[in-house]
Structure formats: structure tokens, C-alpha cells
């Protein structure tokens, strides 16, 4: 759901960006590490701790064999991503390690994790091994060791409990009344409890078409804002369908998808319009930052 947190969590432990991470929503797990491990936790703050000592987010962390990592209440955001050097070992299904709950496929037996499950990790990369060795040398009997570097504040998306999410006009923007278009870009919308990884159903001023039209079904994307006839917008997210037939009023800029993913039911968000060119520029700038992070980590250890 939060591609930025997922990808950077992997980079911090020397993995490829596409390795499997564990996504925990609102409530985290308590897990025992039977071997020493290099991990990182990115995204929402679910109060992770080891032996009662808070574990920092957005940094490489070295855990001793037998450590118990404890997640508590959700302090900020909605979803935390736990990466381990070597990646969580799950089979590739249709070229992906993701879990798709609705179809019961992928990830760990196609389902969410339960108490008692045992997960293995893959072989750490050469870089992951170097980071782990360095941190292991700095333990000095502490509960865990933290690197003195990580993803810095200025690189983080502006996560917030009531974020301003930038959008481009959707391909049916012109189908909506002027008042609806104005409301959409000026009024707050609340995330309803009927929201999940497929889509966020929002509550706010109703959005109306100038005239009723049936759209021929076509592709939708991560961040498409579609509006069914009742007028409440739905933002399609990670587990979205591939195509849809409701008019699309807007499309969330890719750089702001993490902001959506880290809001939870009951919180509100606002939409602000940007051009496609601006969205592309922001996206390329973000991707360049991620590339620099990757290069920076490599240079530290070579």
C-alpha cells in the first residue's frame, strides 16, 4: 500500500526493492527471532520495541538471536513495513511475492499471518551481510544495535493525519458539475470504515454528473478516484481491480500514494490539483532520491 516505505525498508537492509516485506495494519505482531537478523521498520509507527526499548523507524537495526520484537499501539500512520536482510522467504506466484487475500493466493499460504506461524528469510546480499557485521560489532550487550544512518526526514513523504493529496484531473473530470469539481478540490473527505487495500470509500460532499452517462469499462490504476452514481468517491489502491466502469474524477499523483496509504478510517484528507507534468516532475525527483539513497548505502560499505 505504501510503496515508498516498502521499497526503502528493503534498501536499508541491503535487499533489492522488490523483496517481500511484512505489512502490518493498525496492529502489529509479537515475533521471536530464532536467529540474529538485520531488519528495518518503515512507514507507520506501531510502537515497535525490544526488551521495552523503542526501536527507531527508517534505520537498519541488528537484532540478537532470541530477540522478541513487540509491536504495540498505532502512534501514527496506519501501516508498518518490516524488512529483513535476504527478504521474507515466500514463493513467487504469477511473478509476485505479494499476498492477494481476496483470491487466497501469494505470500504466506495466500493469507494473513496468525499466531504460531514460522517465517524464514532468504540469503542476505553481500551488502546486507556487511551492514549486519558492522552493527553486530556495536552491540556491546545492548538489546539491539541501530545504524547511525537511515532515511532522513527531508526525504520522507509529508505523512499527516489529515494530508493534502495532490491529484490530476481524471479522464471524465468534465462530466462532473462545476459545483462538484469545486467541492472535490476544496472540502475535506473522510475515510470510511468500508475501506481496505482494494479501495478507500470516502465521505464528503456528493459528486454529481452533469448528465447520467454509462462509461465503457476501461483500465483503472493505483490512485484512480472513481465515482459511483450515489456520488461518494472511491480511491482505488493496491488490491484494486484492473478495469472499471465508473467515471474517474481524478488520479492521485504517484508521489502522494504513501500519504493515502497511511491514513486510517475516521481521518480526513483534502485534494489539491496539479498538472500531469508537475506530477511527473515530482515522481522523477522522488525516484532520483531513492536511487541516491541506494547508491549512498552502497558507497558507505565499499
Amino acid at each position, binding site marked *: 500500500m505504501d510503496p515508498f516505505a516498502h521499497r526503502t525498508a528493503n534498501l536499508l537492509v541491503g535487499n533489492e526493492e522488490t523483496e517481500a516485506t511484512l505489512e502490518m495494519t493498525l496492529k502489529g505482531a509479537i515475533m521471536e527471532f530464532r536467529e540474529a537478523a538485520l531488519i528495518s521498520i518503515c512507514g507507520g509507527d506501531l510502537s515497535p520495541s525490544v526488551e521495552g526499548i523503542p526501536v527507531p523507524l527508517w534505520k537498519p537495526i541488528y537484532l540478537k538471536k532470541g530477540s522478541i520484537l513487540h509491536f504495540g499501539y498505532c502512534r501514527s500512520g496506519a501501516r508498518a513495513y518490516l524488512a529483513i536482510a535476504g527478504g521474507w522467504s515466500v514463493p513467487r*506466484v*504469477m511473478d509476485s511475492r505479494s499476498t492477494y487475500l*481476496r*483470491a487466497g*493466493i501469494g505470500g504466506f499460504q495466500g493469507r494473513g499471518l496468525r499466531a504460531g506461524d514460522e517465517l524464514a528469510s532468504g540469503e542476505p546480499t553481500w551488502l546486507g551481510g556487511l551492514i549486519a557485521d558492522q552493527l553486530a560489532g556495536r552491540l556491546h550487550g545492548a538489546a539491539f544495535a541501530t545504524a547511525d544512518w537511515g532515511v532522513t526526514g527531508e526525504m520522507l513523504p509529508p505523512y499527516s493525519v489529515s494530508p493534502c493529496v495532490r491529484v*490530476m484531473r481524471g*479522464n471524465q473530470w468534465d462530466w462532473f458539475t462545476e459545483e462538484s469539481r469545486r467541492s472535490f478540490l476544496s472540502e475535506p473527505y473522510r475515510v470510511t470504515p*468500508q475501506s481496505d487495500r*482494494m479501495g478507500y470509500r470516502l465521505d464528503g460532499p456528493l459528486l454529481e454528473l452533469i448528465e447520467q452517462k*454509462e462509461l*465503457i*469499462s*476501461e*483500465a*483503472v*490504476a493505483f*490512485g*484512480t478516484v472513481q465515482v*459511483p*452514481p*450515489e456520488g*461518494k468517491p472511491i480511491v482505488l489502491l493496491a488490491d484494486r*481491480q*484492473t*478495469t*472499471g*466502469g*465508473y467515471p474517474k474524477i481524478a*488520479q*492521485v*499523483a*504517484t508521489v502522494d500514494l504513501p500519504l493515502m496509504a497511511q491514513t486510517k478510517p475516521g481521518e480526513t484528507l483534502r485534494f489539491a490539483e496539479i498538472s*500531469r*507534468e508537475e*506530477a*511527473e516532475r515530482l*515522481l*522523477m525527483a522522488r*525516484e532520483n532520491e531513492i*536511487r541516491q539513497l541506494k547508491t549512498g548505502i552502497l558507497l558507505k560499505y565499499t
Partner: protein
Amino acid sequence: MMEATFQPLGDQAVVVQFGTAMSLEAYRQVRRVSAMLDRQSLPGMVEYIPAYTTITIFYNPMELYDWYKSFGPADLEQDSCSPYQVCCHLIQDRLDQAVLESEEAGRTVDIPVCYGGELGPDLGEVARLHQLSEQEVIEIHAGGDYLIYMIGFAPGFPYIGGMSERIATPRRKSPRLSIPAGSVGIAGNQTGIYPMETPGGWQIIGRTPLRLFRPEDNPPSLLRAGDRVRFVPISIEEFRCFKEGSS
């Protein structure tokens, strides 16, 4: 080749559209472009999603940008490079050079459907709207000659064209939160089948016992674009006794 228009779908996809109305000609263009992309992908392409009149190409903007830096025209300002514009040019070039191949013939697949009752809660509503009896709606639906235009929405969901206008019905005002797997629905003049339990807005008139999404198979979908489909009415007893492979 039919005239194509381009529209962005956000900052990582291009919608290539052939005409504004559902037609066999638009469908054939979409199939040809799909076949062309299967033979040779575009630089930076992640995937494509074919639909009735559109094919949407998703790309990785950084890969496109890198490709453009290496192979793009030297006289253009690199700072002004828009991945969307680059992708549109690449697609247009391909369309201009496209060799049109005749499409392969699809199969015909029989779909048993138990209409109405608990398995088809909107059958009554569809009948009332068109002042038909439920039996007449069933006969019209099962009597049609259908073509699968696309697989989309959920894994293995067939969008089926060719349904009679006499039973064409708009989508529900608000989508249901959960529709059972196998449900047969109507949206406008399209009909389709839900391969798994998902939320959805189509009018549900019946259910098939067939399993449409088969992740263990390759391809993982029972039905494919280009297949012809016949709906065969079955009773609730036949629905319950249905074993795959026995039909």
C-alpha cells in the same frame, strides 16, 4: 489502421483509444495491439490492460527516461522530457509500422447458469424495469450470441458483449460490498461473471458453478478474450450437484 487517440491515466499510464463506441472494429484493433505488444514489448513497459475500445499501457517512468537518454533524439531538451510524451511517441511509431495479422479463432465455451432466486437477486428488478417476466429475461439472456471482449476487473472476470438491448440495465446506484463467486451480472448492455467474491456494482441475475479463476493454471483464467460463450440455464438442483468436468 484505425485512428488512435491518447490520454494519460495519471503519471504512469497511457490510454490508447480506438473510437468512442463499442464496436467489433475497435475490439479487433485492441486485440491486434495486444498481440503486437506480446511479440515485442515497449521500453519501460510494465503491463498493458486491454478493454473494449481502449488498451492502457502502464510504464515505469524512470526506465522510459533512461531509455530516452540513451536512444532518444539528441536535439530535444532532456530536462523537458515527459515520460508520457515519450511513451505516446513510441506507441504511435509502433501503430504506424504495425503489420495487421488476422486474429486466431476463439473457442466456444458453455456456461451453466442457475438464474434468479437467491443466486440471482436482481433478476426481478431487471424484469420489472423492462416489463418482462423473469422467464423472458432468462430466455433472452441465455439465447444470446456472445463474444468475450476482455478479461478484467478481478482475475478471470470476462466482459461479454452481444447481450440484447431488451435486457440492458444500468449498474446499481451503489456497489454491493460482497458478490459471491460465480455470480452472473448485467451492466448496461454488457454481461459478465464474477470469478471470486468481491465488491461490485453489476445487477446479479444468476450464478454459475464453474470456477473461472485458476491460479494453478497457465493462463490462470478459464476464459479468454476472443472466446464465444453460451449460457445454459440449469436448475438449483443441478447447480448443487454440479461437479466440474461432468458437464
